[in-house]
């Protein structure tokens, strides 16, 4: 696949993710959107690494995936613990803290 297309795909994914974080209200969805941004970056890293015939981009992608997993673990834990007794997922309802 041509490099520019892959990078373009990455950019589109990134944009979708960013818009998702900014627009959606459900923290789970927001979180997924954020992870999508990460994966877009990982995709771009891998694409460039292939075109440079270098390994470092691949390593970066690997680390991004690993870290994303850790982040998801923590994120799920926090989201579940916050919403366990609320029974609804809506970031606007998380408003004990003003702001």
């Amino acid at each position, binding site marked *: 696949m041509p490099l520019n297309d892959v990078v373009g795909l990455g950019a589109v994914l990134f944009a979708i993710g960013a818009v998702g974080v900014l627009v959606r209200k459900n923290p789970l969805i927001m979180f997924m959107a954020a992870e999508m941004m990460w994966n877009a970056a990982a995709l771009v890293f891998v694409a460039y690494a292939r075109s440079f015939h270098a390994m470092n981009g691949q390593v970066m992608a690997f680390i991004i995936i690993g870290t994303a*997993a*850790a982040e998801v673990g923590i994120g799920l834990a926090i989201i579940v613990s916050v919403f366990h007794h609320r029974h609804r997922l809506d970031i606007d309802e998380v408003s004990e803290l003003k702001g």
Partner: protein
Amino acid sequence: MITHYGALLLYVVVAFVVAFMVANSSERMGPKAPGGLKGTTYESGIVPEAPVKYFSVRFYRVAMFFMIFDVAVMSLYPWATSLKTLHQAGMLKALAFLVIVAVAFMYVWNRGGFQWD
């Protein structure tokens, strides 16, 4: 020649079509006689009151630990396949990683992370 991934893609598409056709065949071929209590869910003969939406947090916990440890394991695959060429130095470096994973595993175990009930 077709690349491995091209072949795989073709197969995946075919498999999906087949699976779709198989699973939905009775929708076309079976009789249609809706009505009565057929539409309600089965609850040992009692009329269900409300659908449940929530279940134990323990399942989430399992999912989280899986997520974390699975990625740790997966990141060992490239290392494992090339271990023969890495020799002892490669082993020692991965050992550091594995010790961290192992300590994390012990910690989670000890703090009751794997305790069901």
